[in-house]
């Protein structure tokens, strides 16, 4: 029960943080990290796949409402939740950890990066391609996705570093 409340609070805080703070970082018209993906990185291993996708849809819809981008965040976040389940099975084929919450101390730094970086990158790639729908400049979308994925990753890592202390 404690866990449910904790995740609910995290969900709401991340939506507001994204809408109010990170959605308004306008640096060179280029940098816009999407930290709300932290919620799906932090979901317990073995979390119900349907539940994750449902939450991803809800999260995507809320972020879309705040940023006037209908469908864009829904598409990328649902993909993240769907791929996450399979990706965990690839990285941890013999899961001895049970339904542990992924973090640097639980998975180890290397494994945590291996787990989270490809997911964040996939999310950002789909996001920037979906956003540029009618735009032809694919390289711009790719560079933007990679740069912002790295920034999002650094923010996620710093969250876990602060939490550990």
């Amino acid at each position, binding site marked *: 029960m404690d866990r449910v409340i904790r995740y609910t609070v995290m969900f709401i805080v991340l939506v*507001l943080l994204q*809408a*109010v703070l990170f*959605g*308004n*970082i*306008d*640096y060179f*018209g*280029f*940098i*816009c990290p999407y930290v709300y993906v932290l919620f799906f990185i932090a979901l317990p291993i073995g979390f119900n*796949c*349907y539940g994750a*996708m449902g939450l*991803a*849809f809800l999260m*995507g*819809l809320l972020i*879309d*409402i*705040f*940023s*006037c*981008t*209908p*469908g*864009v965040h*829904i*598409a990328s976040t*649902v*993909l993240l939740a*769907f791929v996450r*389940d399979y990706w965990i099975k690839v990285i941890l084929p013999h899961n001895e950890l049970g339904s542990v919450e992924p973090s640097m101390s639980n998975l180890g730094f290397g494994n945590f990066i291996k787990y989270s970086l490809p997911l964040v990158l996939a999310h950002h790639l789909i996001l920037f391609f*979906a*956003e*540029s*729908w*009618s*735009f032809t*400049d694919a390289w*711009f979308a790719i560079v933007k996705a990679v740069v912002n994925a790295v920034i999002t990753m650094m923010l996620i890592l710093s969250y876990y570093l602060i939490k550990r202390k």
Partner: protein
Amino acid sequence: MRNLIKILIKIAPLLLFVLLETVAVVLMVQRSRYHNYAITSTANVVAGGVFEVTSAVTSYFSLGTINNKLALENSNLKNEIEILRKRLSLYNDSIPNAKSDSGFNISYIPAKVIGSSVNKLDNYVTLDKGTDDGIKPDMGVVCSEGVVGIVVTASRHFSVVLPIINSESKISCRLDSSKTLGSLIWHGFDPSYAQLEEIPRHVIVNKGEKVYTSGFSYIFPEGVPVGVVEEVELKDSDSFYYIKVKLNTSFYTISYVDVVNFSEQKELKQLNENITANGQSH
């Protein structure tokens, strides 16, 4: 039968995934300029409310610069009043019975920006006034520096503006020296620059000359400053110039705007629609 159910259970996550993605794609495809802003636009109450609260806090940080800008605008307006007053007295002296109320009726509705973005390909600006204050779609939006954009949708207390820095924005503009008409379009990347298109090659374009609104679109009054020509390029094979315009409006710091209420807009629009309707019937 049992096998079928087994397969279905196995691919159920995939089915849900496909279903949710389809919803997302439908939402994306339906996003066309004047439709479907209803579900996911910042004009809706929840998002509008949150933006209003944050802007109430953050607006304090930029009060200094806003004050300077307002003072500057004030003095410019005062100067203009003086010039006009002089001119009016001149007219009154020479033509005693001159009518003073010719031309269009334009009034301004002041509004505050409570949400905006510059880092996307399709940026929007959210205002704290809506239909209750007289704001309607298709109205032009200007600030003290220059043109901002056009209102696309309005709810009772909020409205959303399609600014110059949106890939779907297209604003009719005029060059200062030659009075040639062109369209101002934004292609992404830098929110400080836009491109002026459709200027034919026989026209002389100077670097540093000013770009104004044409006033033909019955959205903006004539002569609102838009920007300054920064770069001019003409390839031998092209029939139109490539003109890069530095925008006057700084979309990074935009905070107070005026919505243009063109009282004759409806009449003009009706007239134009009549022409196209008649043209089709012949």
